């Protein structure tokens, strides 16, 4: 029977199936950990007197809590410092490779995995973080897990899982000028809704997806969880192989050839089964922005907020709009913005920084806007400096910080004040996500950069010609 990409990788990782139920003992190739969701897992391992089963398959970094200023100094916030110290202590005790603060490879876990060549096609990758789906961009099965599962992988390198259903989302055609990977995924989520892919693993396909760079593909796969999907993936191709080749942990020499031969078998065969198979057209996608408090509440920049939601959804919809300070049916164009945040595991890679820099070069941010750029990793930061992007950004009034998750989830000092509006390149616009009372509008780095310069939301088409 014709197999999908997902089935090929899933089947290759089934240690055994449990008779009588739908559960598989499922093998994990790489386990990424960070300071927030790992301490209780290490404690549990110790409490049960269990060894760490395959420490060489774990990579750790500190990202969620870390400050984005003065990383060379001790962390000021005591609870954050304690969590980061605990990670260091656990990694030393258990012999886990740690790219902690100050390390040249430190950064957001979903940025460093790919850029170091840790993430490879055909792998299974987990992390105690829902945006682990990012790594699916390489043709891997990658998904977020809870802390109990982090313990399970530490103890056995396996998870007990039921096989999700398969969904294919095809985007065919050529993307219009100014429409980026972020707009593609915000568009898909706006169509499917925030729970529309719950229970599914999504494969993104079609010529518009194929045309994306690896950075763009990561942005798309990253937000799969925002429509409830277990994960998202894209079949590896020459773009993928070109990206992986030569990276620190990528296979070399003969191993590379062997790997490549295997990776070329990773695609969905003609006639493979998908329980859900959807197609969208690239030409229908415009630059997007969200107006509500879940990522499914997105519209084209120049469209209006819906005013005809079904009665059953009205309570939640009204609550959301009240929080945002918007009215049904109104346009967002002309709304003043207080903050622009460019960063997070969705959009903090070198390509994103280049997009912003190339737009803001020779311009300046508006006076009413505070513009913060947080690179995804030390390597992205280094590259940006080498390319002179830091100077362009500084001249435009953008503050280039040090790497971390930052204002995406506001666990560190980078918070948006209550009531303030922030156009953010991150992945979630939930109530209070960027700080208690903060109002988040999700958009692409290009839209964010233009908003910062204008000081308000504008129809970006005037800039595109």
């Amino acid at each position, binding site marked *: 029977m014709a197999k999908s990409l997902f089935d090929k990788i899933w089947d*290759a990782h089934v*240690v*055994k199936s449990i008779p009588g*139920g*739908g*559960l598989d*003992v499922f*093998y994990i*190739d*790489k386990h990424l950990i960070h300071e*927030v*969701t790992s*301490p*209780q897992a290490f404690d*549990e391992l110790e409490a*049960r007197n*269990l060894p760490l089963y395959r420490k060489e398959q774990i990579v750790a970094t500190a990202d*969620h809590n870390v400050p984005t200023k003065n990383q060379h100094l001790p962390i000021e916030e005591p*609870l*954050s410092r*304690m*969590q980061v110290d*605990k990670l260091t202590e656990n990694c030393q005790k258990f012999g886990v490779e740690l790219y902690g603060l100050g390390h040249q490879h430190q950064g957001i876990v979903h940025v460093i995995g790919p850029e170091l060549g840790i993430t*490879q096609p055909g*792998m299974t990758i987990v992390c*105690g*973080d*829902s945006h682990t789906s990012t790594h699916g961009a390489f043709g891997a099965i990658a998904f*977020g*897990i*809870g*802390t*109990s599962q982090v313990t399970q992988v530490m*103890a*056995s*390198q*396996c*998870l*007990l899982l*039921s096989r999700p259903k398969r969904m294919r989302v095809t985007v065919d055609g050529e993307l219009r000028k100014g429409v980026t990977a972020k707009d593609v995924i915000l568009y898909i989520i706006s169509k499917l809704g*925030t*729970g529309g892919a*719950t229970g599914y693993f999504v494969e993104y396909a079609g010529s518009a997806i194929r045309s994306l760079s690896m950075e763009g593909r990561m942005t798309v796969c990253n937000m799969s969880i*925002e429509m*409830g999907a277990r994960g998202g993936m894209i079949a590896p191709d020459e773009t993928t192989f070109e990206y992986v080749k030569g990276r620190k942990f990528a296979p070399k020499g003969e191993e590379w050839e062997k790997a490549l031969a*295997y990776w070329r078998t990773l695609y969905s065969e003609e006639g493979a089964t998908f329980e859900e198979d959807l197609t969208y057209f690239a030409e229908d996608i415009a630059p997007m922005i969200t107006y509500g408090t*879940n990522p499914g509440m997105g519209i084209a920049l120049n469209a209006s907020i819906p005013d005809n939601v079904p009665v059953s959804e009205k*309570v*939640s919809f009204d*609550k959301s709009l009240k929080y945002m300070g918007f009215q049904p049916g109104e346009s967002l164009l002309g709304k003043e913005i207080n903050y622009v945040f460019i960063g997070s595991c969705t959009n903090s890679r070198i390509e994103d920084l280049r997009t912003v820099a190339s737009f803001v070069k020779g311009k300046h941010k508006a006076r009413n806007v505070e513009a913060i750029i947080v690179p995804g990793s030390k390597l992205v930061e280094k590259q940006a400096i080498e390319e002179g992007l830091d100077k362009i950004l500084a001249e435009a009034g953008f503050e280039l910080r040090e790497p971390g998750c930052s204002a995406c*989830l*506001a*666990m560190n000092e980078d918070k948006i004040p*209550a009531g303030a509006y922030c156009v953010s390149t991150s992945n*979630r616009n*939930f*109530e*209070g*996500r960027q700080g*208690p009372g903060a109002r988040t509008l999700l958009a692409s780095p290009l839209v964010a950069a233009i908003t910062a310069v204008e000081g308000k939301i504008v129809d970006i088409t005037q800039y595109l010609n």
Partner: protein
Amino acid sequence: MDKFEVLRSAAVPLPIENIDTDQIIPARFLKATSREGFGENLFRDWRYDSEGSPIEGFALNDSRYAGKILVAGKNFGCGSSREHAAWAIYDAGFKVVISSYFADIFKGNALNNGLLPLVVSDEMLQRLFVQIEKDPKTELIVDLPAQEFYVPLWEERVSFEIDPYKKECLINGYDDIDFLVNQKEAIEAYENNRPWAY
């Protein structure tokens, strides 16, 4: 993990859809390195204002409502994978969450912590909200061994789905770690016989 069999309790209603784990437990409270104590910050920003005073009208602050069952709008637990959300709900004294569907990761996290995510139809969920609003003392019964849920006041019993293995785990207080660690032989055999390994 505590054992779970039959639970009789009144319920606390949260008729809001798409409740994400950032609402259940905001990120700024994830800095603890143990599993305990998250209950006091459950629904923190819906429950307390910025001064820490209870917000009137929120179900957890409403003296009419009490019980070990939380009834919530569809797509409960979406967003972040933080298991702290399940810990917070459990720590606040809940043993069951009823909704018309749950986000996948939350569902798994709940089951791994002795918290039962119980799926009912959209229609049943609406009926429950109406009934609890009418009489907050309404008793609900969740019978895990029989996989049945019912309101004694009503005639019918509703059966619910749960994976047979997960059901055994909940009833006996086992978890996946015990199971997986016992699979070492099979896991090692798999590792040694892979045609392709990373």
